């Protein structure tokens, strides 16, 4: 078997006395959609924040295997380096778009580091050298290609905050994709979407997995989406992993049913 894309081992996160994530271990295979599910407050977002460097874990290790760039220990890296160097992108449970900037500008920010290099840290840019103009044009084209795929190319010049909620969710996903990630972490991408939008989202995420070869790690409460698109599900409850396997396996796991339905001991 090939090396997993992400290997999380004994991840622990404590907030004072509270153990939000407790010795959590799982793997994300390349070319898979892996879902983390669990009741509210189970520690899913906390685990995400550890993987993407927003929290420094209290213990455990997080190893990323990039097919061309090599191996990274994410627990030792800063958040922006995890995105820039290890190529792990993420979205947020409550959408974090640059609301006062246009849709296109949002996607240009994702390509900041390449553009910054192309502008020679602004020197080439100030003098308007053609090399920078070419790089900017390419970045716009790349952004527009993504916008076309989610069907909002006509809104490229609108303020991001002016988009309807469903489109904001999608925009946040493509903004993360514009950083060319190998692993995309989505925190409840279907929250607030109607059933039709959720279905579209499922189709889109599979396309990303199959055509763009981006591994996906997903937190989701909408079980129809999770069961439909996941290759692998990890279940978390009170910070501990209680189940791990294919959707069919997890669906029938007694421990999972107990955690979700609150069956008495």
């Amino acid at each position: 078997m090939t090396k997993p894309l992400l290997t999380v081992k004994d991840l622990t996160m404590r907030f004072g006395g509270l153990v939000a994530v407790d010795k959590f271990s799982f793997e994300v295979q390349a070319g898979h959609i892996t879902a983390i599910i669990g009741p509210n407050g189970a520690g899913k977002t906390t685990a995400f924040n550890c993987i993407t460097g927003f929290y420094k874990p209290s213990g455990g290790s997080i190893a990323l295997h990039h097919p061309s760039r090599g191996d990274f220990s994410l627990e030792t890296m800063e958040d922006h380096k995890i995105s820039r160097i290890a190529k792990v992108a993420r979205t947020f449970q409550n959408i974090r778009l640059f609301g006062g900037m246009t849709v296109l500008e949002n996607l240009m920010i994702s390509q900041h580091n390449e553009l910054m290099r192309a502008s020679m840290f602004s020197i080439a840019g100030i003098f308007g050298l053609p090399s920078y103009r070419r790089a900017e044009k390419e970045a716009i084209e790349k952004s527009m290609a993504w916008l076309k795929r989610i069907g909002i190319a006509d809104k490229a010049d609108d303020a991001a905050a002016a988009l309807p909620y469903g489109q904001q969710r999608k925009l946040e996903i493509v903004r993360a994709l514009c950083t060319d990630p190998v692993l995309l972490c989505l925190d409840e991408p279907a929250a607030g979407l109607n059933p039709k939008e959720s279905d579209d989202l499922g189709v889109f995420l599979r396309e990303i997995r199959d055509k763009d070869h981006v591994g996906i790690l997903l937190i989701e409460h909408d079980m129809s989406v999770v069961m439909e698109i996941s290759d692998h599900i990890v279940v978390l409850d009170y910070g501990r992993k209680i189940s791990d396997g294919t959707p069919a396996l997890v669906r029938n796991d007694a421990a999972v049913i107990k955690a979700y339905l609150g069956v008495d001991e």
Partner: protein
Amino acid sequence: MAQPQNNHAQNLGQALPSMIKRSLIVLAIASIIFAPTLLLRLQVSKIENTLFIQYRWVFFAIGCALILVWRLIYEFRAWQRANVPLKASSRPQSQESRFAPYVGPVLLIAAILLPFMPFTDRYILDISILIVTYVMLGWGLQIVVGLAGLLDLGYVAFYAVGAYSYALLAEHFGFGFWICLPLAGVFAATWGVILGFPVLRLRGDYLAIVTLAFGEIIRVVLLNWRDFTGGSNGLSNIPRPSFFGIPFSQGPDGFAATFGLEYSSLQRMGFLYFLILALALLTFYISSRLRKLPMGRAWEALREDEIACRSLGLNTINTKLSAFAIGAMFGGFAGSFFAAKQAFISPESFNFMESATILAIVVLGGMSSQIGVVFSSIAMVGGIEALRQLQFLKAIFGPDFDPSSLRLLFFGLAMVIVMLWRPRGFVSSRVPTVFFREKKSVGSSMISQGRG
């Protein structure tokens, strides 16, 4: 401000008593404020050499009357809004007018022609230099506050660093203005980074307090390090800039003689005016270019959402430091110009009022509009000056009346009115830095003001 309740479908007659009641409450509050400010005045009797209180009932009455009338109009408008259906939906969302693209060029031409106008005298030139200096400082601070959303209350520190850099380099090393100018920018930018480091993790009020303290620290150091800075005596005999080596003096080598003109002290003023205008335009050019480049776009993204920035691989530390450094650099340029123009500087010129004025210019102009800063500088500096000129009020209030004593009161009033009328500044919308088909400006309600 007490918002009138939503009294739907009330006719004016029904609504009137409560409207009047609220207006009277406002009047009562106003009269409490006006009693010590407008009504009472401590006077020195020259004859008996004692203090006595002068009652200025006319002022007081006028002030109260103005407040009452304003509040009644406000009440009426509020009633109108609640009861008369507005055709607001037909109003265009964007406040940009058709003339917007011409405003900049017209202002520039006016600025270039100004010194050649027949009515331009020393006084007007002096004020214009001051206005353009503030425009430049406003544009510099706008990078930090408007674009990056970092509230900096100590901007004057960089102005001071620039001014002292020039003065000290000229004194100790005999450097001329044109060598000192870039050096002053470099020093100020360095201090921008030095300030930036400790405040990297601070946001909002905390950032504001630390930057305020930083501004004060620089001033206090300048005041107390006597051997180096001259303390409160300041530094004098700062060499004045020359016209590419030709001094503005009366002698045979002077500017006037070289160009076959008649000597006039206005020539130096005109030169200084064009010098600051060129520096301001440089600031304009660089900062508007930067805004459209990845660096400037990152500043704005930082203002919108720092966490999202980091998730997209932006090094927010570098982004913040670059905003501080570049903003400070322009402050440093302006500072060395100031030293060159005055030929004398002392810590007194760099107090907190200065920072506050520059910040007010940025806020009043609109956080992300460079043209707005021009208008607000004219309004602020020109307005303060104009209030000095209100001698005609003596005709109304008698010869004892000193209009400059009420200057700050008028000024505060004007600020309050402008901020009520335009809460996000003169030009509140934001022009995108890049577009695909059409450049649509973004309304102010969507733009984040930055919490730090």
